[in-house]
């Protein structure tokens, strides 16, 4: 494992040592390790974890990243042709979501931001569900699988607190489950991020927090977000282990996620993983990143992207080649197209859907409002049907 220290710190008392003063003692030292196994060309930098020698474990990771990228491109195309609302691309960050989610168990719970469909697809969220969400339909968050996973979280970093609470519930009941939360680099500036981490640490709750550091919070670069050398070190203040990983090296991401999940499951408390990557696309389809960052820099970052890296390594293992690549491209296109068809064939939500899940039972005070909405509903297909799954 290539493990240089990303940051090395020593806390000092504010009074500097002088000839006459001997009161200073160092009360804590810490360092943040950066973990990477494969270089950008897919060459091992040293000994690899066991799973990285096993194509049967690596190929599904590659397939999941490829599916994510195929889905991403299709979602943008749908948005550009007026068939989808605003969409947040995960282009370039596929290894983080796939690497972490593939280390989770079904019974664990995911608390994503709005850019983690890589993780969600691995968790069993369907392509048509994700498209329904981005297409403006709450039914997209009623996952047929992943029933305990939280939906996309748009208010920044709040999901870290929800995950900490869920982790506490698992601990209290003695269940071997882990809550996993994703956020972005910008979100690490929010109090909710620290508060959630701090609560989980005090409770020694089974929580893994993943910062997908794609270097950009819309137009604000990582350098303007914090003066801290790493985002991983923000864990230290909460008494949490923080580690930085090359987020474009899925071997490293998966390895670190496995360790953090195993630790949490065994009662070892939370871990913060900062995964370094780069947002190769715009913030969302409503953004034009060319306004605030140099396209040449983005082009350079393509040489670090995660799919090529793993593919090169798989080829070296003798586990991958052009035929398999072509077959995978075909499979992913079919899967995505089937999802798109299911999405486009979904009848619109009924007018009554606004009222149906506001409370477990619609309060009497809202009945008249629902009836008013029904009375004035546009006469579109499905609008007047009773159920919301029509």
């Amino acid at each position: 494992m290539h493990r240089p220290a990303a940051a090395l710190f020593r806390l000092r008392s504010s009074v500097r040592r002088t000839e006459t003063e001997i009161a200073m003692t160092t009360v804590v030292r810490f360092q943040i390790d950066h973990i990477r196994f494969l270089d950008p060309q897919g060459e091992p930098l040293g000994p690899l974890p066991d799973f990285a020698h096993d194509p049967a474990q690596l190929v599904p990771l590659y397939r999941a990243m490829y599916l994510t990228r195929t889905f991403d491109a299709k979602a943008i195309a749908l948005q550009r042709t007026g068939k989808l609302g605003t969409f947040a691309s995960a282009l370039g960050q596929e290894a983080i979501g796939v690497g972490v989610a593939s280390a989770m168990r079904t019974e664990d719970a995911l608390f994503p931001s709005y850019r983690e469909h890589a993780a969600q697809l691995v968790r069993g969220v369907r392509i048509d569900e994700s498209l329904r969400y981005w297409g403006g339909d709450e039914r997209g968050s009623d996952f047929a699988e992943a029933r305990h996973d939280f939906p996309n979280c748009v208010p920044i970093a709040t999901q870290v607190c929800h995950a900490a609470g869920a982790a506490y519930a698992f601990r209290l009941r003695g269940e071997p489950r882990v809550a996993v939360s994703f956020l972005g680099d910008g979100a690490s500036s929010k109090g909710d991020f620290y508060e959630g981490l701090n609560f989980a640490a005090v409770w020694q709750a089974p929580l893994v927090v993943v910062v997908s550091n794609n270097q950009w919070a819309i137009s604000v670069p990582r350098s303007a977000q914090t003066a801290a050398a790493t985002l991983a070190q923000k864990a230290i203040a909460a008494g949490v282990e923080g580690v930085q990983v090359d987020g474009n090296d899925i071997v490293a991401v998966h390895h670190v996620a496995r360790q953090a999940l195993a630790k949490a499951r065994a009662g070892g408390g939370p871990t913060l993983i900062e995964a370094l990557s780069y947002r190769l696309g715009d913030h969302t389809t409503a953004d034009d990143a060319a306004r605030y960052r140099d396209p040449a820099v983005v082009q350079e970052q393509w040489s670090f992207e995660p799919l090529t890296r793993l593919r090169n390594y798989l080829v070296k293992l003798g586990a991958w080649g052009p035929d398999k690549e072509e077959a995978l491209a075909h499979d992913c296109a079919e899967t995505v197209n089937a999802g798109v068809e299911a999405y486009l064939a979904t009848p619109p939500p009924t007018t009554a859907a606004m009222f149906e899940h506001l409370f477990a039972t619609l309060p009497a005070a809202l009945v008249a409002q629902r009836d008013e909405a029904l009375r004035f509903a546009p006469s579109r297909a499905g609008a007047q049907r009773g159920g919301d799954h029509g």
Partner: protein
Amino acid sequence: MAEINLVEAVDLALAFEMARDDAVVVLGEDIGANGGVFRATAGLQQRFGAGRVLDTPLAEAAIVGTAIGMAAMGLKPVAEIQFSGFLYPALDHLINHAARLRNRTRGRLACPLVLRTPCGGGIHAPEHHSESPEAILAHTPGLRVVMPSSPARAYGLLLAAIRDPDPVMFLEPTRLYRLFRQDVTDDGEALPLDVCFTLRGGTDLTLVSWGAMLHETQAAADVLAAEGVAAEVIDVATLKPLDMATILDSVARTGRCVIVHEAARTAGLGAEIAANLADEGLYSLLAPVQRVTGYDTVMPLSRLEYEYLPSVERIVAAARKTLEAS
């Protein structure tokens, strides 16, 4: 049956429900070893353990945020914000998440949490300790907002709130915590949510209020009674969703209505009730609806707080105005 005050009734209801349902956990600042700064959770940690009665770090957003995660994963958290003036950092979680988790997931995930917080003035508390934020909360779709006005209603409504499958904001008037005692049977019987309680029958006018202001409102009804005016007094109790049927029924009989609340007037719940009376009860009205409320000022520090709070005199004056109208 025992004579207890409102804060003891809260404690009693929490203890009853924690004993009945293992999923109930209580969390907040100073609620464990200390039993809460108002003693609303006294004895709970000793009885149910630190695993179910959690002294949290001092961070309001995370108190509510973690309670949401707990609730979605099958617990029934009852979280406390120490004073409602400290609720605001948690509004993001309340409004964006607790109130809409069920809707966002089409019922896949629910959020059965109760958020308790003391509210209102009148106890000479420091700055930011006397807020009346109910209208902010009641404006939020998906939230229930409840405020008890007596020990018995605190006990029964809190039990109902904990058992409700959706988030409930439970506002406890600090001024009532120790103002009076009442016989409360610790039988685990909940009171219904979403309905008003008619505290006193009357034929001449309807006084509508909630929380601590019912104390002054009842006193005003006594003054009016001495003058031969029979005022009906309604405790709204659940501020959202609002039981207008009870209020409309009363006003249909009395023709006159005075709404009394401690919170500031503009966009307060009094305006909502008055608007509903105009919508659906206009032809019953014999006089314009009157509101007696806190002023649209910052809640003053303790020297002036009783000039801010609606007085018996102001309520009686408003009542007389409606009586003189026709």
